[in-house]
């Protein structure tokens, strides 16, 4: 296991390096400059760009980049929060997204599971149809429509919640109430995802041979379902739930904008639009790292959850 993990980590490092390098060139190939003041004289503009080596040949820029990158330093932002270290920017923004995302996770995992289980147990009956339609609705209505409607009706019209998130840093009850709507809006998608996955996995597990054996042993349908089907159908769920856990560091562009949460959601697109290469590169790196780590964690966790891999051999 350890050896395998190390192998994977090395492979991951290589992949990551390639991603970062490719995106470096892609990013710098974008036309335009981070200085968007059209009134600024050309020579002044170039002088400022020179300070960041932006007019050097790409390969030279890449060398500069690599030098810092190897120390995991992406330099300072040049447009979004000029002169602030990229890693520091992320460190200040992430907590806001995390708060919302964690609660969204706490909400969507059980709800998603319950919906999924209910649907699987009642396959092709009314509850299944209702849940399936709900799931597709959750997936198909764009989140900005949901978020706007929630804000308008629950916060503005009914006044049950504040319109925008509270500014308290600590997570008080007050703060929680104020981020409840974004949590809700954010959860619809993951609830639907989990429910859909659970439904199909559990549905499959319910029809499996070992369920027949379990019932032949004398277990009731409920006992058999809980003791045999559930466990088996939850193993593949790691596939979508673990990425959700690592996904809590990211934010949602739309929802954060509507509820005024200063989180990660818009950083990437703003950085790209503003040609803030260091920030874009930094976000990209950390996200890719996270993404690859997630894949690794999923794979390794299968090794832990699934005895077929844990005890030896590989999954067929």
């Amino acid at each position, binding site marked *: 296991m350890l050896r395998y993990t190390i192998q994977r980590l090395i492979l991951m490092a290589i992949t990551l390096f390639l991603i970062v390098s490719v995106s470096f060139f892609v990013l710098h190939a974008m036309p335009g400059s981070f200085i968007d003041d059209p009134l600024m004289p050309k020579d002044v503009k170039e002088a400022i760009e020179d300070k960041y080596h932006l007019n050097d040949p790409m390969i030279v820029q890449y060398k500069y980049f690599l030098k810092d990158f190897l120390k995991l330093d992406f330099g300072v932002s040049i447009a979004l929060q000029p002169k602030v270290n990229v890693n520091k920017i992320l460190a200040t923004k992430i907590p806001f997204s995390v708060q919302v995302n964690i609660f969204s996770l706490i909400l969507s995992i059980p709800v998603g599971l319950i919906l999924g289980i209910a649907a699987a147990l009642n396959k092709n009956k009314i509850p299944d149809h209702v849940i399936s339609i709900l799931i597709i609705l959750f997936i198909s209505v764009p989140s900005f429509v949901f978020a706007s409607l929630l804000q*308008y009706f629950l916060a503005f019209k009914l006044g049950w919640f504040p319109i925008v998130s509270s500014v308290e840093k600590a997570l008080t009850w007050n703060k929680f109430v104020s981020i409840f709507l974004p949590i809700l809006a954010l959860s619809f998608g993951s609830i639907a995802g989990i429910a859909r996955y659970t439904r199909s996995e559990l549905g499959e597990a319910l029809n499996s041979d070992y369920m027949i054996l379990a019932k032949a042993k004398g277990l009731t349908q409920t006992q058999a379902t809980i003791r045999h089907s559930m466990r088996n159908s939850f193993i593949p769920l790691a596939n979508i739930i673990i990425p959700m856990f690592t996904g809590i560091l990211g934010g949602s562009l739309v929802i954060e904008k509507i509820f005024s949460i200063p989180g990660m959601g818009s950083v990437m697109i703003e950085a790209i639009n503003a040609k803030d290469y260091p920030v874009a590169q930094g976000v990209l790196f950390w996200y890719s790292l996270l993404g690859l780590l997630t894949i690794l964690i999923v794979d390794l966790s299968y090794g832990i959850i699934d005895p077929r891999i844990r005890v030896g051999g590989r999954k067929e």
Partner: protein
Amino acid sequence: GKKDNETDGKQDVDVDDSKKDDEEVAEDQGPVVFRITGGKTATLNPHIYKTSAEAGTMSYIFGNLLDMIYDKDIDNYKLIPNHAVDLPTKNEEGTVWTFKLKEDLKWEDGSPLNARDYEYSYKMLLDPKLKNSRGPQVFDSDIVVVNAKKYWDGECEWEDVGIKALDDYTLEITLEFPVPEMDLYLAFTGGGASSPVQEKIYEAGMNEERTETDYGTSKETTPSCGVYKLEEWVRDQIKVYVKNEYSPIKDVYTVDRIESRVVEDENTNVQLFENGDIDVTGLSGPNYDKYAEDPRLVFAKSTTVWSMFINMTSEEKPFLQDVNFRKALFYAMDRKTIAEDIFKTAIPAPYVVSSAKVAVPSKGLTYRETDVAKSVLPENDGYDLDLAKEYFDKAYEAYGKKMEVEVQYFDNSEQMKRVAELLEQDYENAFGPDRIDIQLRAVPWNNAYDNMESGKYDLGFGGWAGGIFNPWSSMEVYTSGFTSKIDQFKSEEFDKLYERTVKGDLIFKEQERLEALAEMEKMLLDVVPFVPMYEPVSAVMYADRVHLITEGKWIPGVGFGVLQSHFDPLE
């Protein structure tokens, strides 16, 4: 707290306001709080800030030698000394200006502030290693400080630069050429690049190579020398300002505390306003419809005239070189519809210089109010379909085949898109879709400018902001030598006239200078390197508790004077 009226019916805002009407509410109800929203602040480093939102913040927290306020008596703006004892004096040629500073000036933390801080600040602003983007402000704008550019470029010593602290309380500025008083005053008014930075913090934040400083990136690194100081700053979320007790002019302002939330979604903003959570909201397009008849509406002008630039030197599309074609575009533009139906509050603008620009500072008179300017104006907002068709026929005849043009617009503006869509229809209808074919192209906005600079476009929207008080220097963008030129207009005559009005003999000749401006405007309108479209006017709504000191009138330079206004206390 702002959000604990959860249980109140929201309609309260509309119905129950009657009790607020009796203005004579007892004073002394605690600090006067003004609650606003705004966009994100990238930085509060006065040497590199970019957006007007940042400029706004800086005007609260960074003082300067002078300040501009609303004066009830003259019902207009007024310059008052802030850190300076009085307005500066100048030498005979009008190139050396001397400010005397007050003696007990202090930074937010109580440490003394004097002319040396100013000198240090300019030194840093122009530092060749720091390469601050606001540096050009002292060598590429209305005033040009001696050797500033050279120093910025690293080509001379600081001693050679025309900014000196003669002693602790005297600051001397040496200019390359004389400028009108107002231009100089304005250069040292309000918070911004010309405000001082606090040396110890600026230096402490400096990196080893002295190429970056973290000044103005957090509350701790943003010391105030203005009327307000930062009490709290959570990036992209909230800023709270409170009165700075050391400010010499703090009593001019009535507001004690400003709370500013970052809200980027306009619907959210309006809901917050209706909910009584904030005191002011802007209204655009469809949101404006809802309040079109609301008595709380006030309107603010802007210095930009948005225009449709024409690539008049295009080789690819030679018909763009034909002035008849460009004139056809000019006269076939239904500016009224654009202004009133798309932007709702905008003003149709068949001219170059915005109606917000002040041309006679002494009288507070705007250029458009002057008679010379009025003489330039075409009739009916320049909308004349018959004339347009006449011009077009000529152009069409000369070109001989169907004209295909592309309009580029900014991809982040729904309304610009609508203008483009409207123009496409109007032009095709006016000239016949068989003769002209208009295509649209959305472009990220700084790419749009890049395209126009490099002449890679046919038609494209754009506009120049420029200062409110110097319409002449704003003409620089149309001169041949301007480096970031987005139009293709080139005229020696125009350049000469421009030189004369900003650096030459006309500087101090009020009337001639006005006429010269009109002349330049006329040149542009004759050649039509761009078709002026409209002048945006923003609709703003203040809560009932805000009793604007200007009574809703927008004053150049000070807007509605909100911070000087009377506020009802919060419940």
